[in-house]
């Protein structure tokens, strides 16, 4: 039973593999509009954010935090990957309504391909991040390979959140405004440019309720503290991703056949 399920999954992957790569290509081309500057811009834009944050907040936190620029960068790349993947993924179903009302294809492919282009973007800034680490005199250890854990968690987390958001966005078109307000609030709650050291232990624990903060902290533990996160911390990170992913699949499956009534 399990084997046949696996086999049907493989044939499905083969069947839709070509479509998926074509969708990724499309999203990529549209995003960068076939210009070299477009690609450059996706690196430049986080760097400019970084620069502004460094100038504005460096005065307050720069002296207390070691490697403050890297501290900021950790927060920025993770948060912008999250917000780009979710806010972009939110519209991915509705934007392709013209297609899935005419042709029978799995609708989640649109979300996945949108997530891939966010991931590529993240990969570009991650490369720049590593260069910054070298410049700032961070020592590279084997622990750096563990960064794959928060990254993979984040991929699943973003897809899960995207499944929920894109499904709800078909139903409620004002969701994008609420979501942009929410992400702004979440940004301030993710300790991107400040440290949580000044808060009481209870408050510091409350920060762990924010999955994005957990992933940012994971990065910082490895890159700045040169340490390895505890088992509990790993479980928390993986747990958030699994939870988001399962909820995403549940909501998507529940609403999957209803989309047609709304577009």
């Amino acid at each position, binding site marked *: 039973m399990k084997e046949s399920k696996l086999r049907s999954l493989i044939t499905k992957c083969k*069947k839709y593999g*070509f*479509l998926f*790569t*074509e*969708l990724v*290509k*499309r999203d990529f*081309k*549209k995003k960068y*509009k076939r210009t070299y500057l477009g690609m450059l811009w996706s690196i430049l834009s986080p760097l400019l954010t970084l620069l502004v944050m460094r100038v504005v907040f460096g005065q307050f936190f720069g002296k207390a935090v070691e490697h403050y620029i890297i501290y900021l960068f950790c927060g920025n790349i993770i948060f912008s990957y999250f917000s780009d993947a979710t806010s972009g993924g939110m519209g991915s179903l509705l934007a392709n309504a*013209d*297609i*899935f*009302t*005419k*042709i*029978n*294809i799995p609708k989640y492919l649109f979300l996945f391909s949108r997530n891939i282009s966010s991931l590529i973007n993240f990969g570009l800034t991650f490369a720049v991040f590593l260069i910054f680490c070298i410049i700032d005199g961070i020592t590279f250890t084997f622990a750096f390979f563990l960064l794959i854990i928060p990254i993979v968690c984040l991929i699943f987390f973003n897809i899960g959140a995207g499944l929920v958001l894109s499904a709800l966005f078909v*139903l*409620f*078109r*004002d*969701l994008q405004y*609420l979501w942009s307000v929410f992400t702004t609030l979440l940004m301030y709650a993710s300790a991107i440019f400040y440290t949580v050291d000044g808060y009481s232990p209870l408050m510091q624990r409350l920060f762990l309720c924010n999955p994005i903060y957990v992933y940012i902290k994971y990065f910082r533990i490895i890159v700045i503290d040169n340490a390895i996160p505890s088992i509990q911390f790993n479980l928390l990170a993986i747990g958030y991703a699994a939870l988001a992913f399962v909820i995403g699949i549940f909501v998507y499956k529940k609403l999957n*056949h209803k989309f*047609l*009534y*709304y577009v």
Partner: protein
Amino acid sequence: MEQIKENSEPIISLENVSIRYFTGDFKEIGIKEFLIRKLTGNYKIREFYADKNITFSINRGDMLGIIGTNGAGKSTLLKAIAGIMVPTEGTVRVSGKIAALLELASGFDDELTVRENTYLRGAMLGYTKRFMNDTYESIIDFAGLREHQDRAFKHLSSGMKSRLAFSIASLVNPDILILDEVLAVGDGAFREKSEAKMKSIIGGGATTILVSHSIPQVRSMCNKILWLDHGSQIAFGDDVQGICDAYENFLKTT
């Protein structure tokens, strides 16, 4: 009954298929409005059946014409057959690869080139990459868009867009071809070419479903016919001429 046994297994069979549609307040209202209306009891959904108790089956090589006035539920029924919609009640059984040509020219991406759109559409219709590499040239030639293949799709005329869509979908030799008013694509020359192409697909043993408002076309091409009115099945059978006559009388009297 005996006649059915004689023929091969039906390639498409619908049994008591009903499709319910929702309309009303829920579209395009936001979360705030939704909550307010829910609380005040003002939230109303109107449901209606786009199709009700449709039952028919067709065999390999049949050409089914579906006729009916606007809003008869033809397009919704095609969506159920193509697997885009799930019927509320009843079952749809389809065996074979479907190429559905529903509102052809939509769903292309304006920003991409003709070549990129061709590959993308091919992928959506379930073709493999190798198949697309092999047939790309003939698709472009059939559509007559060789000089335009690297232009952005938005620069094409609407006739060119339909021609491309038709060429991509029809060059696969599908088992089942679903056509929603597409015979009217392109100029006279292309129309002839596309009709010839369709005839060769049908001649090759494909099963075809054609939705058309052109009764002469249905008369000349179809061997089975389904007449829908306001979601109900008025008639189904192989007496194409008889049902067409009845339909034309019906149109005159209303």
